[in-house]
């Protein structure tokens, strides 16, 4: 029978089936400091061990400061969580990339970077953006702390089989430097809504997906969860195999695996998906979110909508949009390009990899940021930071007036000192514009790295297509 890529990976990992749910084997478990302490405590209380410490990797990313790492951490509760992870990793024999490691970084950035992420593997982490790693053709998804404990103890997880949802990305982008992977995924979420993928795993297909780099595919898969899907997949291809070749944790006889993956990791022709959606990239423009969920997004050439116009007759949506407009301090009808900003954040597991920084640097090179704007770059990992410095990106950004920080999740969720003040407005390359996400009362506009960089220069949103990006 013809199978989808998801079904092939799923079927290959079922250990047992009972009462309509499956026990799924997990090949890679990534752990960070915020969602794991209670799980390790659970193990201790029940005198259980970590079944496969060799398949478990940990780092600290959510609440690490992005300022000078040689100084002690000021926030005592953050320091406690970081110390708790150090203790647990030592006690249970887990490889930890700690705050001083040259490999430290956002868990979804370092997984692929170190070759921990592999095609066809099942990967979990106590973080919803684990979906990022589906860009490699892995079945990767976020789990809660109880499941973190469950995977630590058993290397398995109980799950009901999700439905399949194909997302075809077709057409030809006229200006791929200005209309990025971020604009594609925001456009998809705008159409299907934040609950559109609930109960499903996405598979992104189509000619545009093949053209995208792995870093761009990661941006798209990352925000699958913002469209409600627990995971998003892209079938691996030559680009995937080349990206991973030579990385630290890939299998020794890599070429044999590549042969196997080429043969097996694709959706068969004739395989049926439960749902399908097609987006034509010819029509996509740079996107700017105006509301408090990622579906509340507009074209840069557009205006902030009226709640009624956005809701299209849905009263619940209308109420939500009214509240969002009020929270965001925006008047319907305002041109997106008339929205002024106070802060710029380029970083997060969505957009903090080397290619994101290279693209953003093209916008700011030789320019100065607006005197009204405070802007920062937070590389996704220490490896990204080093590579960027080797090609002089740090200098370009610093000369333009940006702060150049250490790696971590930073202002994407503001668990460390990087937060917005009340009413501050931020152009952010992160993934969530929820109320208070970047700081109580802070206002987040989700954009691509080039759009964020352009806004930093002008102090308001601008159509980045009008700038020279070559």
């Amino acid at each position, binding site marked *: 029978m013809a199978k989808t890529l998801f079904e092939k990976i799923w079927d290959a990992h079922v250990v047992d089936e009972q*009462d309509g749910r499956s026990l799924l084997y997990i090949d890679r478990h990534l752990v960070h400091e915020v969602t794991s*302490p209670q799980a390790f405590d659970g193990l201790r209380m029940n005198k259980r061990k970590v079944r496969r410490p060799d398949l478990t990797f940990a780092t600290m990313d959510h609440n690490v400061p992005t300022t000078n790492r040689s100084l002690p951490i000021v926030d005592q509760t953050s320091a406690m969580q970081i110390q708790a992870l150090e203790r647990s990793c030592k006690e249970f024999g887990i490889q930890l990339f700690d705050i001083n490691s040259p490999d430290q970084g956002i868990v979804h950035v370092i997984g692929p970077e170190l070759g921990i992420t*592999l095609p066809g593997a099942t990967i979990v982490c106590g973080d*919803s953006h684990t979906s990022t790693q589906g860009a490699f053709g892995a079945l990767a998804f976020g*789990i809660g702390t109880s499941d973190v404990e469950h995977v630590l103890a058993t290397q398995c997880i109980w799950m009901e089989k999700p439905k399949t949802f194909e997302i075809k990305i077709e057409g030809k982008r006229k200006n791929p430097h200005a209309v990025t992977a971020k604009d594609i995924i925001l456009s998809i979420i705008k159409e299907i809504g934040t*609950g559109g993928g609930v109960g499903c795993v996405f598979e992104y297909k189509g000619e545009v997906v093949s053209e995208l780099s792995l870093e761009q595919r990661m941006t798209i898969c990352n925000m699958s969860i913002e469209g409600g899907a627990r995971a998003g997949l892209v079938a691996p291809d030559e680009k995937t195999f080349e990206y991973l070749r030579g990385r630290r*944790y890939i299998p*020794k*006889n890599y070429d044999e695996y590549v042969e196997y993956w080429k043969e097996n990791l694709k959706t068969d022709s004739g395989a049926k998906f439960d749902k399908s959606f097609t987006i034509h990239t010819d029509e996509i423009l740079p996107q700017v979110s105006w509301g408090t969920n990622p579906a509340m997004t507009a074209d840069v050439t557009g205006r902030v909508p009226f709640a009624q116009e956005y809701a299209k007759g849905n009263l619940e949506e209308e109420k939500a949009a009214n509240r969002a407009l009020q929270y965001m301090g925006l008047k319907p009808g305002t041109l997106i390009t008339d929205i002024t900003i106070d802060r710029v954040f380029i970083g997060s597991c969505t957009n903090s990899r080397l290619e994101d920084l290279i693209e953003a640097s093209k916008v700011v090179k030789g320019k100065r940021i607006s005197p009204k704007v405070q802007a920062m770059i937070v590389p996704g990992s220490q490896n990204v930071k080093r590579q960027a410095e080797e090609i002089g990106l740090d200098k370009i950004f610093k000369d333009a007036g940006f702060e150049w920080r250490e790696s971590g999740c930073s202002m994407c969720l503001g668990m460390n000192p990087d937060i917005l003040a009340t009413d501050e407005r931020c152009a952010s390359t992160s993934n969530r514009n929820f109320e*208070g996400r970047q700081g109580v009362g802070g206002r987040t506009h989700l954009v691509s790295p080039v759009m964020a960089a352009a806004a930093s220069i002008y102090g308001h949103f601008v159509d980045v297509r009008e700038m020279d990006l070559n």
Partner: protein
Amino acid sequence: MEPFRTVRSVATPLDKINVDTDQIVPKQFLKLIQKTGFGKHLFFDWRFEKDGKPRRDFVLNDPQYRNSRILLTGDNFGCGSSREHAVWALQDYGFGVIISTSFADIFYSNCLKNGVLPIKVRQQTLQKLFETKSEIEVDLENQLIKLEDTKIPFEIESHWKKILLQGLDDIEITLKHEDKISKYEGSQANTKFQIS
């Protein structure tokens, strides 16, 4: 886990869609390393003014819902972050049942893992429940939401029903299948993902 018992109370109507877990428990409270005590942080930014006073216009501060154990809410509840702290906060506050038209996947699973019952109903049913002012009863054994004048059946996966009613430990259940896990680990299917 405590076995799930029949819940009877008025239902708190939180009439919003797409409530994300950042709202249920904001990030400043995720630094605790235990599972208890999150109730006072539930819906923190919606529930309290900046000076810490309860906001009069927020439904949890309405005295008639003070002892409510059932939360009614709109579509796609619990979307966003996977933080299980959201469920720990709802449970610690006193909610044992959450009724909506749909739930985000990770949140749904997090609820069940903690013995909180998420019930999916149709829009029409949710509307009726929103209009109900008297106490309602949630009977998991018989899969019924009981109102004064009617009984509404609901669906739940059979294994979750069993786990909730008996208060079973999921890890304990899985460890009974350890032979199968070991067999899988030794099989061809898995060997290609071993770290070499």
